[in-house]
């Protein structure tokens, strides 16, 4: 059958009934936009997070006071947990045998850094780390050096700074050896971090890192005593044993009775990735689901347009039947027309969705992944939409009596 003709006809009806068709196509576009936008953004976030996780290695596991991704209602339970302290860290370092290293970092938000007359906005993340942090978290140094064990042990007033700080405070100066001030304490800059952009919208370059001991002494408020511990097992095979060992040590350090459950969380890279994927998966399915609802509404619109179109073109259908069009040809013609209409709307939605996710992706500093599977999903859905909602009008057209249709004014 002449598919080209039906497609041309679909474009004709777009052209001739601009507003009516535009409104219907818009609702399809919005539906597809939701699917593609959510899908593309989620895919991009996933890929950026997963590559970050992968960089940490399969052998690593983490101990936190509260879960990283908590969507439930049990925050009260977690809020009562004791912080993970420096003592815990030291104990772990001492007790664990199956590990390459144990490292920890503390975290304080919203600090102002001064250098001479200049100061930054009060939005700098301050981190306290030990000497293993840089290797463990895959944090590179472009200039100067990272901390050594002595720097930590002797509590030296050293700082390693991110690129945003360099740009703000040391526009044309080599920062190495300069002294910066945080809350009236002076630190000598000994290194500059590799530029990393942002992970999940969290800028990685706007931070200052100081020795953990120094951090705990001056900056950690009650909850900021809370350390994030990263442990690397000697190899992947020993991961489970290393985790058991770590849990045992944690329980004894925190004086847990055998019947009490852990008051800390242990996560591996894999479990975090899984949790994250299930969270983003939920987001993308939510996007797809809302998109589908919009598309079903749009389908009703398509059916309406097609019914009007069949009505308006009754005579044309009569002519086609008089010169020998069988029922199924008329049926195909109108279904193909409906599919084409849906695809036009879908195409606009795909483009809009990609543009929007590219925009938000650039805000969040992640590389856009073209969500092939979501694009294909959208095309398939639009085709189905055309078939399902085009079928009844097309069937009405196909079963018209040629004599009545020819007489129709």
């Amino acid at each position: 059958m002449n598919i080209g003709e039906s497609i041309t006809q679909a474009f004709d009806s777009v052209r001739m009934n601009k507003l009516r068709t535009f409104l219907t196509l818009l609702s399809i576009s919005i539906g597809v936009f939701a699917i593609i936008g959510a899908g593309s953004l989620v895919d991009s976030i996933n890929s950026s997070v997963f590559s970050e996780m992968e960089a940490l290695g399969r052998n690593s596991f983490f101990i936190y006071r509260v879960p990283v991704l908590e969507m439930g209602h049990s925050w009260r339970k977690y809020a009562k947990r004791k912080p993970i302290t420096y003592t815990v860290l030291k104990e772990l370092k001492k007790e664990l045998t199956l590990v390459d290293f144990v490292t920890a970092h503390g975290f304080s938000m919203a600090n102002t850094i001064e250098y001479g007359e200049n100061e930054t906005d009060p939005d700098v993340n301050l981190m306290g780390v030990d000497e293993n942090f840089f290797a463990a978290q895959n944090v590179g140094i472009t200039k100067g050096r990272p901390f050594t064990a002595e720097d930590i042990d002797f509590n030296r007033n050293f700082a390693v700074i991110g690129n945003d700080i360099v740009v703000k405070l040391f526009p044309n100066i080599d920062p190495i050896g300069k002294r910066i001030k945080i809350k009236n304490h002076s630190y000598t800059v000994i290194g500059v971090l590799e530029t990393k952009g942002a992970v999940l919208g969290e800028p990685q370059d706007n931070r200052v890192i100081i020795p953990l001991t120094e951090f705990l002494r001056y900056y950690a408020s009650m909850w900021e005593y809370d350390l994030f511990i990263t442990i690397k097992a000697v190899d992947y095979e020993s991961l489970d044993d290393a985790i058991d060992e770590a849990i045992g040590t944690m329980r004894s350090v925190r004086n847990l009775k055998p019947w009490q459950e852990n008051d800390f969380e242990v996560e591996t890279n894999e479990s975090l990735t899984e949790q994250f994927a299930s969270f983003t998966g939920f987001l993308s399915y939510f996007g797809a689901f809302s998109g589908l609802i919009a598309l079903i509404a749009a389908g009703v619109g398509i059916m309406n347009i097609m019914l009007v179109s069949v009505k308006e073109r009754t005579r044309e259908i009569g002519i086609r039947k008089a010169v020998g069009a069988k029922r199924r040809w008329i049926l195909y013609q109108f279904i193909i027309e409906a599919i084409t209409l849906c695809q036009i709307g879908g195409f606009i939605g795909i483009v809009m969705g990609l543009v929007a996710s590219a925009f938000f992706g650039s805000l969040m500093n992640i590389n856009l992944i073209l969500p092939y599977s979501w694009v294909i999903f959208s095309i398939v859905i639009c085709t189905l939409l055309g078939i399902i909602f085009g079928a009844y009008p097309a069937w009405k057209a196909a079963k018209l009596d040629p004599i009545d249709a020819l007489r129709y004014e």
Partner: protein
Amino acid sequence: MDLNEENKNGKPIIDIEHIAKIYQMGSEFVHAIRDITLKIYKNDYLAIMGPSGSGKSTLMNIIGCLDTPTKGKYLFKDMDVSEMTDNDLASIRNKEIGFVFQTFNLLARSSSLKNVELPLIYAGVGKSERDDRAMKAMENVGLADRVNHKPNELSGGQRQRVAIARALVTEPSIILADEPTGNLDSKTGLEIMNLFNELWKAGNTIIVVTHEEEVARFAKRIIKLRDGLIENDSFNHHQRITNDTSTTSSVTNQ
């Protein structure tokens, strides 16, 4: 004189025997056609006349395979049309019948050539052959220079020529014209009737349904209907055959 008896050279294309068409309107039955027997042979030029309500539209629809009779038998080239399904009727219409309507019935948004190609599309003819044959049909009606014009860019007479080209393009067994001059002025109407005349002389079988004596005069045989019956079926001794070719067409038997 009964032409059905007289004309015995070969088998008829159309062989209608005692057909009736009864519609139900509410609780009443309307006998559009009561009892009609009719044979139409190759190269006939038949005019079907009658006042409105005489059943001529119904007869035309049945002859044209747009409708089937309630009673009786209709053989089209020995095929029993009276029992055919919609799809079979569509394929008979496509292959065997060329329609020409009073209101032209062209697709408004398509060029003349596309309009002429339409029956060939449904016949499954490939693109290049379709173009060739449609082009030839357009030449035959003298509109070779109007192939890319849309119907609204053509005069009434030209539109009817496009419609005739569409009717000719599948080389049908009969051309069925329903009031072909009804929407045209008398001069243009005459041109169209001259075109039919040429097509007839070139060997085509033509059936014209009309209520105008002027139009019927061109036919070789005139059938008059009244109240669903044939009132008169006779040879037209005064057939108007013009050599006044105001058309520039060269009609060949296809």
